[in-house]
């Protein structure tokens, strides 16, 4: 089965299953009282063909300038990622969890949101946050956990929060953001506000309680949610096929009565198109979509992980040849939209900008001792006032900057 044209596919709520009888297995799935089940597009959407032409059925019709801008975001994200790993290796930051190889999935989907739409992150989406407008300095301050860090040095690096950019707050426990994103969009729907939430998670997270709850509530209440599953092949050392007995992760949509679609997660335009269709459908009140974006985590899980312990170099190499940044650059080259000189300039500019941010972050003070007690409650209760006084009056820990 080939991918359907998005305009045909979204004419009515029932069109998905009507146009795609085989998408539910073509057999015993009975329509519910809500009408026919939404469809699942199994064959991953791919937009950029090998010859550089675009599949007209899914071409999101971005302008040249838009495509170049998005490419530059991917490159920037990659450069920042690589530098942060180096900083961690040098012991200057404690941790980094990045998006090497997943740039098209993350930036393509974030770019497909409208300005009023909200993004609920997992933990690899700093590129989306920067694209949404968080200053690089603020992100770097988060990596250092200093006094200027928007989350006040309270959380690990890469646990940022971006309310001014319509961007949620990173939490380590897997899956928790999924139901929250559903509720956020549901509230907007109750208030008749025109907004959609895009929530990111890995394929491992589809095993969590919260994935089930989120997808189920989204199906029951037809919330304006886009579930963006970054299927990057691995959950730390556990391969994707050990997470589920389903044929694909997108298949899970069927059971919840939401739409499902797979896309080539290393094809920027495919991710954009799949997400855009889901956003528009949600905005029209036609419910949620589970987008399975097929990509690959080229790095270790985080700087704490050595992937050589559990996966073969040959597998990694095969995916390196599908590097989303390289692929998109080749596409731009075919159209004469980009060249090495521009790329070198961008890379140098990004590296220099980052170096300045790092310098400033390292020079910034640590969060104040008092700040440890702020925000636990809206107002400091007696026991925290006592504990704060005790900390301030007491001796400092060894090697502490205060």
């Amino acid at each position, binding site marked *: 089965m080939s991918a359907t044209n998005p305009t045909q596919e979204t004419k009515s709520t029932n069109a998905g299953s009507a146009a795609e009888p085989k998408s539910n297995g073509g057999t015993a799935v009975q329509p519910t009282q809500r009408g026919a089940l939404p469809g699942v597009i199994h064959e991953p959407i791919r937009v950029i063909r090998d010859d550089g032409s675009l599949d007209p059925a899914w071409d999101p019709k971005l302008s040249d300038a838009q495509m170049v801008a998005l490419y530059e975001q991917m490159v920037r994200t990659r450069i920042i990622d690589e530098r942060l790993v180096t900083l961690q290796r040098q012991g200057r930051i404690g941790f980094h969890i990045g998006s090497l190889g997943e740039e098209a999935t993350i930036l393509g989907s974030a770019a497909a949101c409208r300005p009023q739409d909200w993004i609920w992150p997992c933990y690899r989406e700093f590129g989306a946050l920067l694209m949404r407008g968080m200053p690089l300095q603020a992100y770097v301050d988060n990596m250092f956990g200093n006094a200027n860090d928007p989350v006040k040095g309270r959380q690990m690096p890469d646990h940022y929060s971006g309310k001014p950019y319509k961007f949620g707050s990173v939490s380590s*426990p897997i899956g928790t953001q999924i139901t929250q994103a559903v509720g956020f969009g549901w509230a907007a729907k109750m208030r008749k506000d025109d907004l959609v939430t895009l929530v990111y998670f890995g394929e491992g997270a589809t095993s*969590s309680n919260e994935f089930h709850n989120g997808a189920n509530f989204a199906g029951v209440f037809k919330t304006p949610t886009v579930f963006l599953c970054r299927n990057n092949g691995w959950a730390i*050392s*556990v391969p994707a096929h050990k997470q589920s007995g389903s044929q694909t992760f997108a298949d899970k949509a069927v059971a919840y009565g939401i739409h499902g679609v797979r896309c080539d997660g290393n094809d920027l335009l495919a991710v954009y198109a799949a997400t855009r269709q889901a956003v528009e459908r949600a905005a029209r009140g036609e419910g949620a979509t589970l987008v399975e974006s097929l990509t690959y985590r080229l790095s270790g899980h985080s700087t704490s992980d050595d992937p050589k312990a559990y996966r073969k170099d040959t597998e990694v190499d095969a995916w390196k040849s599908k590097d989303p940044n390289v692929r998109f650059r080749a596409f731009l080259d075919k159209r004469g939209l980009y060249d090495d000189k521009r790329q070198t300039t961008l890379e140098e500019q990004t590296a220099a900008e980052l170096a300045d941010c790092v310098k400033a972050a390292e020079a910034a003070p640590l969060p104040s001792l008092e700040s*440890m007690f702020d925000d636990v409650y809206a107002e400091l209760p007696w026991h925290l006032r006592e504990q704060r006084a005790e900390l301030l009056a007491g001796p400092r820990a060894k090697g502490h900057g205060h």
Partner: protein
Amino acid sequence: MPQMNMVQAINDALRLEMKRDDRVVVLGEDVGKVGGVFRVTAGLYDEFGEDRVIDTPLSEGGIIGTAIGMALYGLLPIPEIQFGDFIFPAYDQIVSELAKFRYRSGGEYPSKLVIRTPVGGGIRGGHYHSQSPESQFIHVAGLKVVCPTNPYDAKGLLLASIRDPDPVLFFEPKRIYRAAKGEVPEGDYTVPLSKAAVVRPGKHLTVVTWGAMLYEALDAANQAAQKGIEAEVIDLRTLWPLDIDTIVESVKKTGRVVVVHEAPKTCGLGSEVVALINEKCFLHLEAPPARVCGFDTPFPYTLEMEYLPLAHRILPQLVTTAQF
């Protein structure tokens, strides 16, 4: 005797029991091929195969719920929760099911599982890789909670936990996973549950502690000794049911007590220890019992060494309590 760290000692105990008892299975996230993110289960997958050392889907509720089911059938599962901070999706299964199965079935079914999980801070782990949730389990009737501080105890306590008829939460202080080293006998031995260890004898005051803070308490006690204060340091080893006799005996001797734990102060196990001391040896007290604990905030990142009750915070309290 071989020298081991805590990781190796726990690994040794698991291997020994898996060989001895074919009902034992290990399951959890990343425990198989890669041997766990801290490598505690390293080599077990190769030795015992994927049916007994199981990489599960990413669901703590799934891990504990199915482990309870396996145990009801007659296996002896030892699930690992990757970090203690991630145990909460399984909290329902632990609190509502595991802890109550024997009781609610009138003794028909067993309640048995050993849940291993790394706990504690000081490793730059922020909110979600640092917490010490012991009292949230101690408060649930039916659960035992164990927390070793050295490789010898780690192996002996784990073997005792596996063979104990009750469900045990086995909390491994990750800050000392590799730092705490010592001799560990080859082969089988157990360290009894609910027996504390007097790690440092002393006559002026009693320090009750556990986990990674033991080493901070010892550091502070050694510094206090230079001021002529001899602290007796007790490592609880089993947090619940705790060894009340050893505590009471020590407090009757010293008349003074400081409890040290890194979990937040309020409703921490320290509260219960102090209440028990008040109930059982109030008339022997020469000073108000004191607590040096983590603050009642989420576990911070940058300021974690200011949050933890390290030696620099324990020492002044030892002096104050001794001189009261």
